[in-house]
């Protein structure tokens, strides 16, 4: 722990810290461009110069390149250093187009800040400025190359950190150019990070283009709701509209980066069809009447048909507090415990994942530090994109990645791929957990596991199911020893799937609810931000069950199918409009703060024109309430989030840290369960000859919230079917052919894609919402299917 003196202040920093970071710890602002906490320092911009007065190095040095050492005496304010930095910024500004008024970076531009900090104000050089032609970089990023100061941050972000290959530095000499070889959309699903990382306005947010200034935005620390990883985000809103999302910084999870699904999936909040008024049979009613009606109808049904005639359905989309209060409501009504999740298979897998002891649970930071990552049935880019980025960092640090999956799992790094049938995956995991020998095909895996010091086993709840998830956790426990830690991580479908599963404990699941609905026993269903009509795989049975209901109440903020059918619709706020807590897939509780108050966006109410020229005391579309607040009123509890959190923490000892949680922090792990992990049994599965149909998640288009976001429209994939080349040869199918897929009663015609990097005997279709592939659900056991060629390309 070296101690050094910077500007007459003494500071002690950990070994390996550079002098620039040490100065930042003291709160000293030193201009810099090329240094970034996630990318490190390269000493290219020459802007962080300091005068080293005493110690191992002396003279003018770039502080980002000098490691802090004992006895250093450094000055940032020495006249030589100030003059040096002033000259550097002056030549960085030589070719800048001075177009800050029309630049979206204006106000949050590091170049502006550093220019002011270095004291440069007038361009003395009278020569002509260098100019460039721009490129079209796709729907997310706007390119304005004239603003570039050649700091190389974009290349280091895109190529080094994110593993993209289609963007880089071109040209030589005075003609350095940062772009693609040709115009075209950036291929990396992490390209949006260029917006945050570019210190000037070269790469700016295209959907947000010319929308607002940074200082006008309402911002608050929040959590990304688009997968179960729970990355820290900072959404920004103005004029009642969520306008952009930028990355927050949670060192335990996402670092400074987020994926494009999280960055551009926000627009569901502004959806024009979003429910905004309480509706009883399609008629608008005031809030107090709506809540009274709900309670009256439920109590009346209980009186007539008994307490098991009503069912409550929570979800992994709703906050932990709302889901808990649903439980309180069921206790108050005397009905059965709520069901959490409209997909029984996914719910069971999530419940299995909650049994993992905290000390065995891997965070993304653990994944980044791992030396062997075993992916079994997990497709990070589809099910939790930031995990793919964390895995890439592990590979950059010398780690190995082994993938056992029926799908062609692609990652932005080098991997070792072993094609496995879904049932082989389960056998592999149960063999690992029981210490049995693995088939010869998987021998490289055994050797790698023996050598690894910090292995992490990662599974996908969808493909593994509850049985596989239990086996994965048991395998991690088996491989974990005193000499080395073996951690596990399970990818879950929704942002709060873990929290919902934790509350569900041993409660009923959706299959039982479906059976009860079909038998006509259930007369009323209350859905809390859950849409069984889009998430339940057994659509037929569900529709029959819904027919038999007397009363359907829906709390939701999405224009969902179930909301359209509801007798009583109670509009709730979206995540950015309220406060609450989510528990991510590793069991980390994270609080989020309200960013803005709900309301119909001004863009929609005034149709792009100026706001109305009349005054009104009400805000259009401002009626949605936070789900937990509505439920607290229904339960006759005070509408106080802190009290609810305290109560929840006393009810559920695993959530002990909940009352102290802050939205600003990096979250807090839940406590381990006191019961030991359940042991998996040896699995015997029979070999199937027919082609098996497997539905899986995709990066864009599968997740429910981002499916309602218009900035993602241009990148949503079209329906397709993926076959192994060997199967395609056997069936006489070539890539691009139209094929007919018959599975159960469903028949579809789809274009075929071929791959040799997948398990043979498996047919893969993506789960794409609002397409004909909507009816194929991930998280289901694979089903036999037939594929026939219809016509050639």
């Amino acid at each position, binding site marked *: 722990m070296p101690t050094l003196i910077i500007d007459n202040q003494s500071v002690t920093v950990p070994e390996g810290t550079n002098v620039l970071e040490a100065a930042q710890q003291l709160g000293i602002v030193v201009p810099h461009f090329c240094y970034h906490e996630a990318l490190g320092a390269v000493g290219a911009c020459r802007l962080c110069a300091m005068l080293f007065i005493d110690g191992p190095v002396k003279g003018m040095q770039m502080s980002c390149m000098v490691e802090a050492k004992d006895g250093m005496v450094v000055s940032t304010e020495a006249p030589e250093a100030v003059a040096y930095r002033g000259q550097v910024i002056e030549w960085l500004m030589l070719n800048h187009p001075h*177009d800050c*008024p029309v630049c979206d970076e204006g106000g949050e531009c590091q170049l502006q800040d550093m220019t002011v900090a270095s004291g440069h104000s007038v361009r003395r050089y009278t020569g002509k400025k260098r100019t460039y032609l721009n490129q079209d970089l796709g729907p997310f990023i706007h390119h304005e190359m004239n603003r570039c100061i050649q700091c190389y941050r974009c290349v280091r972000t895109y190529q080094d950190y994110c593993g993209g290959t289609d963007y880089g530095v071109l040209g030589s000499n005075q003609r350095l150019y940062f772009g693609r070889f040709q115009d075209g959309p950036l291929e990396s699903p992490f390209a949006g990070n260029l917006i945050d990382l570019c210190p000037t306005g070269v790469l700016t947010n295209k959907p947000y283009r010319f929308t607002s200034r940074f200082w006008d935005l309402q911002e608050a620390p929040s959590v990304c709701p688009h997968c179960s990883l729970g990355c820290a985000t900072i959404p920004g809103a103005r004029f009642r509209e969520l306008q952009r999302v930028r990355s927050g910084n949670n060192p335990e999870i996402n670092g400074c980066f987020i994926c494009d699904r999280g960055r551009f999936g926000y627009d569901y909040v502004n959806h024009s069809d979003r429910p905004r008024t309480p509706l009883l049979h399609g008629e608008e009613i005031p809030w107090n009447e709506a809540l009274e009606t709900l309670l009256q109808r439920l109590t009346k049904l209980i009186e007539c048909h008994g307490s098991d005639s009503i069912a409550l359905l929570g979800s992994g989309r709703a906050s932990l507090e709302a889901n808990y209060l649903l439980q309180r409501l069921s206790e108050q009504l005397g009905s059965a415990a709520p069901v959490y999740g409209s997909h029984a298979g996914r719910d069971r897998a999530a419940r299995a994942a909650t049994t993992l002891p905290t000390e065995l649970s891997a965070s993304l930071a653990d994944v980044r530090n791992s030396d062997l990552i075993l992916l079994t049935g997990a497709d990070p880019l589809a099910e939790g994109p930031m995990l793919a980025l964390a895995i890439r960092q592990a590979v950059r640090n010398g780690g190995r990645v082994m993938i056992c999956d029926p799908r062609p799992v692609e990652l932005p790094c080098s991997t070792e791929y072993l094609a496995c049938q879904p049932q082989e995956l389960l056998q592999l995991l149960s063999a690992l957990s029981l210490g049995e020998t693995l088939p010869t095909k998987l021998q490289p895996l055994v050797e790698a596991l023996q050598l690894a010091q910090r292995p992490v086993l990662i599974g996908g709840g969808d493909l593994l199911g509850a049985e596989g998830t239990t086996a994965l956790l048991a395998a991690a426990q088996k491989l974990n020893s005193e000499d080395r830690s073996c951690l596990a991580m399970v990818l879950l479908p929704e942002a709060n799937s873990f929290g919902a599963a934790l509350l569900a404990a041993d409660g009923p699941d959706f299959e039982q609810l479906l059976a009860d609905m079909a038998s006509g026993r259930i007369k009323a269903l209350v859905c809390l931000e859950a849409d069984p009509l889009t998430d339940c795989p057994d659509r037929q049975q569900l529709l029959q069950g819904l027919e038999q209901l007397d009363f359907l109440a829906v709390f939701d903020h999405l224009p969902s199918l179930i909301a359209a059918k509801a007798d009583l619709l109670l509009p709730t706020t979206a995540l950015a409009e309220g406060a609450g807590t989510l528990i991510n897939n590793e069991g980390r509780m994270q609080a989020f703060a309200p960013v803005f108050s709900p309301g119909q966006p001004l863009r929609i109410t005034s149709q792009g024109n100026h706001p109305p*020229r009349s005054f009104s005391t009400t805000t259009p579309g401002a009626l949605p309430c936070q789900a937990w607040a509505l439920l607290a009123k229904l339960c006759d509890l005070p509408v106080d989030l802190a009290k609810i959190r305290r109560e929840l923490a006393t009810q559920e000892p695993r959530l002990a840290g909940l009352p102290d949680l802050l939205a600003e922090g990096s979250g807090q792990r839940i406590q381990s369960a006191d019961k030991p992990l359940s042991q998996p049994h040896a699995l015997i599965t029979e070999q199937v000859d027919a082609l098996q149909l497997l539905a899986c998640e995709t990066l864009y288009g599968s997740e429910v919230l981002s499916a309602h976001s218009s900035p993602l429209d241009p990148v949503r994939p079209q329906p397709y079917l993926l076959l192994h080349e060997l199967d395609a040869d056997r069936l006489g199918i070539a890539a691009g052919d139209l094929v007919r897929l018959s599975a159960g009663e469903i028949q579809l015609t789809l274009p075929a894609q071929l791959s040799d990097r997948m398990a043979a005997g498996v047919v893969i279709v993506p789960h794409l919402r609002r397409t004909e592939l909507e009816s194929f659900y991930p998280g289901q056991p694979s089903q036999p299917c037939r594929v026939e060629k219809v016509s050639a390309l």
Partner: protein
Amino acid sequence: MNLWRDIKGTFQPFWVTLRYLFKRPVTISYPEQKRTPPPRYRARMILTRDPEGEERCVACHLCSAACPVDCISMQAAEREDGRRQAAWFRINFARCIYCGLCAEACPTMAIQMSPEYELGNRDPLKLVWEKEDLLVDHGGKDPNYHFYRHSGIGVAAPRGGNDDELPPVNIKTNLP
């Protein structure tokens, strides 16, 4: 001595009043009579146009950021040719204190203060002016200034076509 001073203090003002009784008055009977302010007088703001007759305002939000009473609001939008313009621009003159900080902040010389000072009104809503009300058809105090001719992002002139710019570089050449 104090007594003398008090007597002087009592009568001197009367003397001053009496003297001015026979001079031409400095005040005028507004609003029957009106005084023409000097052309550079700084009363209510206007939105001027560039030499090509296009709106100078690029909706950069600097005026609304500088405004001490928050009376300016706007929304930027992109025109088909890439020019940034205000989709709407609103100033509430009921709140405006005519401090001129908006004109000082304006980087494109769009906002200038005009000599028009008569905004008194019985309906507060008539004091909320939109872009159409504020736009004038001249360039104001500096008619030749053209923002896009100085900041090179290829809107008014083609890329690299401004006087202080070199043509776009050829990034595929290897020559030194």
